[in-house]
């Protein structure tokens, strides 16, 4: 995992270094965008895979199996990793947006709305104590429509800008 992160970061740095003719400010702003996307990919794909595997193992093997129990024990560190990296990605995206505020378009606005909604629901899901609020945030945070919309908007944002 660490090697994958370092590899992605090295790609980003080489990307920024290859564009020396552009201003430093612009390189860094672009870099924030790529950091945000990398964080999102690294934080979410393994987490979704882990949840799927855990669900399948509970269904097929049952709750008493050692594999299922081991997977359940890993939940807390994986969740912390997911939250931490996604927060880093969110703030990197925020800086990217602030630095390139003059080039704002409808897709960027839509993307920022979706990312903020998912992040806020995730933070509330982790820290809120009320049951109803937790149910609401769980549905919002894990809804397939918002996830698909987020992926489509990121692809459009990359293609257009």
């Amino acid at each position, binding site marked *: *995992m*660490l090697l994958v*992160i370092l590899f992605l*970061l090295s790609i980003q740095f080489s990307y920024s270094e290859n564009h020396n003719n552009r*201003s*430093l*400010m*612009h390189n*860094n*702003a672009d*870099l*924030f965008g790529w*950091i945000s996307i990398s*964080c999102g990919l690294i934080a979410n794909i393994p987490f979704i895979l882990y949840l799927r595997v855990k669900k399948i193992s509970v269904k097929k093997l049952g709750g008493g199996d050692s594999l299922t129990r081991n997977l359940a024990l*890993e939940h*807390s*560190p*994986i969740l*912390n*990793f997911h939250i*931490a*990296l996604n927060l*880093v990605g969110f*703030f*990197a995206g925020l*800086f990217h947006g602030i*630095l390139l505020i*003059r*080039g704002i*378009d*409808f*897709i960027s*606005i*839509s993307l920022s*709305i*979706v990312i903020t*909604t998912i992040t806020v629901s995730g933070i509330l899901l982790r820290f809120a104590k009320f049951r*109803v609020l937790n*149910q*609401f945030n769980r*549905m*919002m945070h894990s*809804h397939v*429509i*918002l996830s698909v*919309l987020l992926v489509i*908007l990121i692809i*459009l944002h990359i293609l*257009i*800008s």
Partner: protein
Amino acid sequence: MKFLLSKFILLHFLFIIVVSYSNQCFTFVTVFSQEDNKKGFGIQERERARIHTENNSEIVKNDFTGFILIGTIIAIIGVSSYALYKIYIIRRKSNKSKVKK
């Protein structure tokens, strides 16, 4: 150990962001402390923003991105309404089962 690894990765990313951002602030200070005719960054950024706006205006003309924004807002309102409706259904069911007992 695994939690420590995630902490390390978090710190690593935070370090990169802090370094990049401080670099950014330094560039700002350097650029804006220069005389007007030397503000290359300002001219370059204005030019880039102009090109970006031109490109975007072509896209906006197609009403494509406007629909995306409207679709996004509708999707978020729809998902939150659906979530509230589901919670209402769950609560109503649990209340009914409590009354039966």
